[in-house]
C-alpha cells in the first residue's frame, strides 16, 4: 500500500481529522492515526477500505489511476472556485440614520449631500449586470441606509424588471428597517424583494450598538420584522448578527431576540477586524474569547433543537457545507481564490465599481491607492492590476501556514483583511484573525459533528435544509 498526501489536525475530543487536496476527509482515533502514519494501514480493515476509497492510500497496482483521480479532483475544485458568479451590490446612498459604534462602512450623515447615486446611472448599472453574467441575478442593495432612497431602489427594481426579465433576478435590501413603512411593504408584496437586517441581540444590546437619535432602533426593527412576517412571509427576511463585546457575555440574548421576533434562522459572526472599522478598545476581543462565546451559543441552539425548536445557525452550516458538500463554493469568504470580484461586483454611489464590500471600505481608509476597477462607464475588470494581484495572492493552497493545514481545502483567503491589518495580502497566518476564526470554527464544528451523533443529525439538517 502506498500513502498519499494529506494534512491533519487534532480535534478536542482526541480524534484526528484528515483531509486531502481532493477535499475528502476522515476522522481517526489516536491509535489508528499512529498505525496509519507508521505503516499506511490501521488494524481496522473497514477503516482501511474507507481510507483507500477516500484516496488517503492506494494499492500499488492502481497508483496511477488514484493519482489521476486526485489531480482531476483538484482541477475540478480550482476551476469551480474560479467561476465568475457574482452577486451584484448597489449602494444607492452612503447616508444613514444610524450612527453605530462599529459601523463597517464609513457612513455619511443622514442630511449630508453628495453621497447619493445619480438616478441616471441606474440603467447603465443594470445593463452592465446583464452583460457580465447569465441569469439568475442576485442584486443586493447596500448602504448607508438604502431605505432613505426608496425611490432609487424602486428605479433599480423597475430597470431590472425591464432589462433582466421578471423571474431572473431577486433584490435583497440590507437595511436596519428603521424606515420601513406600510407603503414599502405593499410595494414589496408582489415583487422578488427580500430584506436582510442586522440584529445584534435583545433591546438593550441592540440599542447600545445601533444608535439612533431616538434610541429605539430595536423597537422599530421588531415592529418592521413583525409586519414583514405577517404580510410577506418568513422567507422574505433574514438577519445578520455581528457579535460585539457586550454580546460576548450574553449569547442567549441573540437567541431570545430571534425567538422574540419569530425568526428561526440566525447568522452569527465576529466583528470585522478591519483597521478601518471604528474599533475602540471596548469593542475588541480575541477569537479565543469569541469561540468561548460561540460554544455557549451553539450548545444552547442545539439544546433548543433537541427540545423541538428548530433554530439554525448559518455560519455553522456554511463551514460544514464546505467540508461535506463537494463543489459548494458560494460563500465568498470561504473560497480560494478569494471571492473578490469573482463572487461580487459592487456599484458604489459615486459610480465607482469595486470587487467587494470590503474594498470600497478599504478605499475610504487608504485614500492613495485606487481600489476600484474604474467607473461604471469605463469598467475594466480584467486589466486591473490591483485585482489581478489581490486574486493571485489569494490561493491558500500555496500560502505559508495553509499548505500544512487540514482545513485548507475548505477554507478561503481574505487579501483585503490582511492588507488592512498587515499591509500585504497574504498575511502571517499565525497572527491572522481570518485564519484564527475559520480554523477554530472548522475545528469546533467538526469535533461536534463527529463526537456527538445527536448534534450531528441536527447539523446535517442544517446543511441539507
Amino acid at each position, binding site marked *: 500500500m502506498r500513502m498519499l498526501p494529506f494534512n491533519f489536525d487534532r480535534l478536542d475530543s482526541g480524534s484526528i481529522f484528515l483531509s486531502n487536496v481532493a477535499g475528502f476527509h476522515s476522522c481517526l482515533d489516536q491509535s489508528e492515526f499512529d498505525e496509519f502514519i507508521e505503516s499506511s494501514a490501521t488494524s481496522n480493515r473497514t477503516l482501511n477500505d474507507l481510507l483507500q476509497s477516500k*484516496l488517503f492510500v492506494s494499492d500499488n497496482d492502481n497508483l496511477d489511476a488514484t493519482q489521476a483521480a486526485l489531480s482531476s479532483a483538484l482541477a475540478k475544485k480550482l476551476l469551480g472556485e474560479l467561476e465568475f458568479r457574482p452577486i451584484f451590490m448597489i449602494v444607492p446612498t452612503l447616508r444613514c440614520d444610524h450612527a453605530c459604534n462599529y459601523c463597517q462602512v464609513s457612513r455619511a450623515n443622514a442630511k449630508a449631500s453628495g453621497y447619493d447615486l445619480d438616478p441616471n446611472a441606474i440603467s447603465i448599472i443594470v445593463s452592465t449586470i446583464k452583460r457580465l453574467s447569465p441569469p439568475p441575478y442576485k442584486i443586493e442593495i447596500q448602504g448607508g441606509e438604502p431605505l432613505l432612497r426608496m425611490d432609487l431602489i424602486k428605479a433599480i427594481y423597475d430597470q431590472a424588471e425591464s432589462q433582466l426579465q421578471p423571474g431572473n433576478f431577486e433584490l435583497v435590501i440590507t437595511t436596519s428597517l428603521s424606515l420601513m413603512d406600510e407603503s414599502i411593504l405593499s410595494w414589496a408584496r408582489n415583487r422578488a424583494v427580500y430584506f436582510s437586517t442586522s440584529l445584534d441581540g435583545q433591546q438593550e444590546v441592540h440599542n447600545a450598538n445601533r444608535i439612533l437619535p431616538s434610541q429605539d432602533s430595536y423597537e422599530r426593527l421588531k415592529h418592521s420584522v413583525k409586519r414583514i412576517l405577517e404580510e410577506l412571509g418568513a422567507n422574505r427576511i433574514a438577519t445578520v448578527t455581528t457579535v460585539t463585546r457586550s454580546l460576548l457575555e450574553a449569547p442567549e440574548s441573540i437567541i431570545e431576540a430571534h425567538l422574540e421576533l419569530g425568526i428561526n434562522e440566525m447568522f452569527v459572526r465576529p466583528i470585522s477586524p478591519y483597521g478601518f472599522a471604528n474599533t475602540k478598545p471596548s469593542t475588541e476581543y480575541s477569537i479565543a474569547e469569541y469561540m468561548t462565546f460561540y460554544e455557549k451559543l451553539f450548545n444552547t441552539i442545539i439544546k433548543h433543537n433537541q427540545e423541538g425548536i428548530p433554530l439554525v445557525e448559518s455560519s455553522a452550516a456554511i463551514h460544514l457545507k464546505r467540508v461535506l458538500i*463537494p463543489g459548494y463554493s458560494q460563500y465568498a469568504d470561504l473560497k480560494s481564490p478569494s471571492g473578490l470580484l469573482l463572487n461580487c461586483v459592487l456599484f458604489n454611489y459615486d459610480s465607482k465599481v469595486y470587487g467587494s464590500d470590503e474594498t470600497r471600505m478599504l478605499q475610504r481608509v487608504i485614500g492613495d491607492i485606487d481600489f476600484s476597477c474604474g467607473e461604471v462607464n469605463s469598467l475594466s475588470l480584467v486589466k486591473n492590476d490591483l485585482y489581478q494581484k489581490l486574486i493571485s495572492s489569494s490561493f491558500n493552497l500555496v500560502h505559508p501556514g495553509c499548505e500544512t493545514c487540514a482545513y485548507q481545502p475548505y477554507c478561503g483567503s481574505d487579501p483585503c483583511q490582511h492588507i488592512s491589518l498587515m499591509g500585504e495580502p497574504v498575511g502571517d497566518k499565525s497572527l491572522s484573525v481570518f485564519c484564527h476564526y475559520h480554523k477554530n470554527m472548522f475545528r469546533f464544528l467538526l469535533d461536534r459533528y463527529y463526537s456527538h451523533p445527536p448534534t450531528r443529525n441536527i447539523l446535517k439538517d442544517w446543511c441539507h435544509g
Partner: protein
Amino acid sequence: MVETIRKDVFQLPPENPIAAGHYLLRTTVPDSSNHYLNQILIKDDVYSPKPNSQCITGVVRSSGLLGNISDGDIGVVNANGTLRVILSRNANHNTVLVTERCNNRCLFCSQPPKERDDDHLLVQAGLAIAAFQSDDIIGISGGEPLLYREKFLRFLDFVILHAPSTSLHILSNGRAFSDTGFASEIAKRCQDTSITFGIPLYSILGSNHDRLVGAHGAYRDTINGLINAGNLGIPIELRIIPTQQNYKDISTIVEFSSRCLSNIVQVSIMNLEPTGWAKNSWHNLYLSPSSYLDDLRNGIEAAIEASLPVCLFNFPLCHIPEDLWPYAVQSISDWKNYYPNECSQCQLKSKCPGYFTSSRGKFHHPPRRIEQCVNGT
C-alpha cells in the same frame, strides 16, 4: 408462461416463410424501398391478396404480431421461423446489441460474452437504427461496444449521418476511454448528437472492482476512462450494482464521483438482475435491499448533497422503505418485466418497477406487505 408487459417474440405462420434477417416492419404498404433494410408487410389473419408492391419482400399474416407493433418497427426473423421485435415504437426502452465480445467477465453478466468476430452485429445495428429513424433514445449494449475502437467511431458517424435525430445511450465498461486520444474522438461526436455512456463502477477499492468484473486491471482503466471521458465532456450515467461484495461502497463511489469526476449526469443504483452468470453465483452475490438500507440511503444522500441526480432501478417498491420510493423508477424493459399475482391487488402497482421475468423460481423475492398496508388491502 409469465405475462410480460410487452410481448416481443412471435412465431411466424409456416406459410410464406420469410428469410432470416433484419426487416423494417410495415403495417401499410410502402410506396418506396427502404435504403437500409428490406421491408415486410404485417397483416391480420384474414386472407387478402398480396399487395402489388415491389417495395416489400414478404407478407406476414399474424393478428398477434400486428397488434403488438407499429408501422416502422424493426424485427429480426430467425431461421427457426420466429420474429423478434428489436426496435419498437411502443417500447419503454429500445436497445440493440452490437457485440458479444467483452474484456470484462462480470460475475453477474446478463449477456455472457463470446469471443468471436461479430462485426455483422454492428452493421445490423447501424442499419436497423438508420431504418428505424427514431427521434428518441436507443440503447447500445454488448459485450463491450468500445472494443470496436475505430469501427465504433465509424458507427457513431454513421448514426449521426443517417439517423441524425436519434440519441444514443451506450453501455460500456469505460476502459477504452483510458486512451485519451480515443476518448477525445468520442467526445467530438458527443457534440454532434446526444450520446450518453452508461458506465458501471462497483467500488473505489481497485481489487474489489476487479474481482466483481472478473478482470485484473479493469479498475485502473475504468477510473482513468471515467476521468478522461467526463473531463472531455462525454456525458456519463454512473451505474452501481450493489452485491454482497460491494454494498458498503455505494456512498464512497458516489462521493468519489462528485469530487473526482465531471459530467456525471445521473447515478443509477441497480438491483441485481438474475440472468446470465448472475444465476451461477446468485447466493454469493444477491443481497436483499432490506439488509443494506443504510448503505443505500447514505449513497442517495451523498448524491443529493453533491447535486448528482440519483435513481434506483429495478427495486420493487415493497422491497424498499417509503422514503426511497421517490428515487425508484420504472425501468425494466417491458419485454422482460412482470408483476406476480400477489401484486394484482396492490394500489402502487402502476407506480412500481415490478420484477424481471428472469427472477422467477429460486431467484424470486416475493412481494411483501408494505407497512401502510397498501399491498393486498
